[in-house]
């Protein structure tokens, strides 16, 4: 039984007409599939079926350890959204946990963005990202029922697109309680920057930028 309904499939097929460059979903699961690994794999496969521009690769987190390490994947289920085709590129965009509920729209937005090859961020933010000298890691904790979360997730992923030094993870807080505990997540969205700085809520771009500047200062 598929997860996507017929009307939704048709809607997405239409939306994906706008895809200009190939996008690859690199999904990590394991033989004894984890909680929501199966559903996350199904989502990846079903979305990839909707456009010739989208491909999917499924890897086993244990058996394909080298590939998992190459993508720096440390937990599952995981999806890396990368540029495909002749010039593949891993922007550091990651989804940890199932992209369901409101986060399904984040997944689709990211596919569109990677295909477009344009983050849509302001010139000021792009200039800051281009000037980075040190790595920046953003972890955006979400729940599937949080309407404010996609904004925070998408902005983090937009940033990842702008610099090879930035990686950005969506982390589904309920599936990874140990991380939620570690980072004191009691409300979402909560963005953890480089382990040391955090921000509550979905902030406008200028506010996130100033928080990032503070984190790397």
């Amino acid at each position: 039984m598929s997860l996507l309904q017929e009307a939704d499939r048709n809607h997405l097929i239409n939306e994906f007409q706008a895809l200009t460059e190939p996008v690859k979903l690199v999904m990590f699961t394991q033989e004894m599939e984890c909680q929501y690994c199966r559903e996350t794999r199904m989502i990846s496969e079903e979305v990839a079926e909707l456009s010739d521009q989208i491909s999917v690769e499924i890897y086993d987190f244990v058996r394909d350890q080298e590939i998992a390490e190459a993508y720096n994947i440390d937990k599952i289920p995981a999806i890396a959204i990368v540029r495909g085709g002749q010039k593949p590129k891993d922007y550091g965009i990651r989804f940890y946990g199932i992209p369901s509920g409101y986060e399904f729209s984040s997944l689709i937005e990211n596919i569109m963005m990677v295909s477009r090859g344009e983050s849509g961020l302001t010139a000021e933010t792009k200039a800051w990202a281009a000037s980075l000298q040190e790595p920046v890691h953003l972890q955006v904790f979400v729940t599937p029922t949080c309407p404010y979360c996609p904004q925070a997730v998408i902005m983090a992923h937009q940033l990842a697109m702008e610099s090879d030094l930035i990686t950005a993870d969506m982390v589904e807080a309920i599936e990874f309680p140990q991380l939620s505990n570690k980072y004191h997540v009691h409300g979402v969205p909560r963005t953890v920057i480089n382990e040391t700085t955090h921000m509550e809520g979905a902030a406008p771009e200028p506010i996130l930028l100033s928080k990032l500047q503070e984190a790397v200062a």
Partner: protein
Amino acid sequence: MSFDLNLGLGMSNLGGGEDNNYDVVIIGGGPAGTSAAIYTARADLRTLVIDKGLTAGALGITGKISNYPGVPGPVTGAELVEIMRQQAESFGAKFLTDKVVGVDIHGARKMVMAGTGAFYTKVIILATGSMGRTSAVKGEEEFLGRGVSYCATCDGAFFRDQTVAVIGNNDEALEEALFLTKFADKIHLIVPTPELKAREALAAEATDHPKIAVQLGTRLKEIVGNGQVAGVRVHPRGGGEQTLPVTGAFVYLQGGKPITDYLMEQLETQPNGCLVVDHEMQTTVPGVFAVGDLLCTHVKQAVIAAADGVIAAVAADKYIHGRKAVQTDWK
């Protein structure tokens, strides 16, 4: 840990389908927003009004009105709004009970993101009124994200089998309290006024729920804790202060400040938080209008808000059709 992961996948959030495209999306269904809807719908503009509920706004919670022109009354604010809505619906306007969480106001195709999905539109009319809060309760900012929350649907799962407080007195507060019953063991519903000002059925459901303890006439004085919320200090009317041990405090209090948080600072405001508009109620962004109590330039009366809505509606029609002058509705 089990959790409803909403495997419907949230497809409605994507928007873009025919049903999600409008000429005019109005945020707020009080007298300003609904009057605008009457005019835009009558002008054959595909119109959607998104509103949190009949009793969500200043007029909706007003008890007795006898001075609204043409309606001798007395009527309650909710009754007056309902009459206006029926008039707007008779011209084809659609009303959606939902909360707007964000907007993208730039470009010809604007987007309004609500809980149930994204809506695309040529024009946005902002009519969210001025019941925003002016100041936080002691401890609220300190414990934000550490037990203080404004979104039970987002954060409820973190409070499984715990005792929490919901503070507020409107439909939203009661709906969120009822949502929390899926997770929390006990919910203290702290209501500042002597009676509930929510829809009757909702009030009855909350009052009768075995997990909800309604505390009427009780003011929230402070949210306390040590790195994490540990309690709320409250003051019941006529009684002494007490601290209720809770791990979560969900705050839905209201005040008198223009509600513009969902705009994410995309529009120019005055120092007092009011939006800046021109003589046609258009903000600094073309195709985005603001009306009613979001403005500081007029008497805060329903009839004035309604008039604002009409001015914006007529200007919206002009904007959409690229006309230079307003087209009159009488000959």
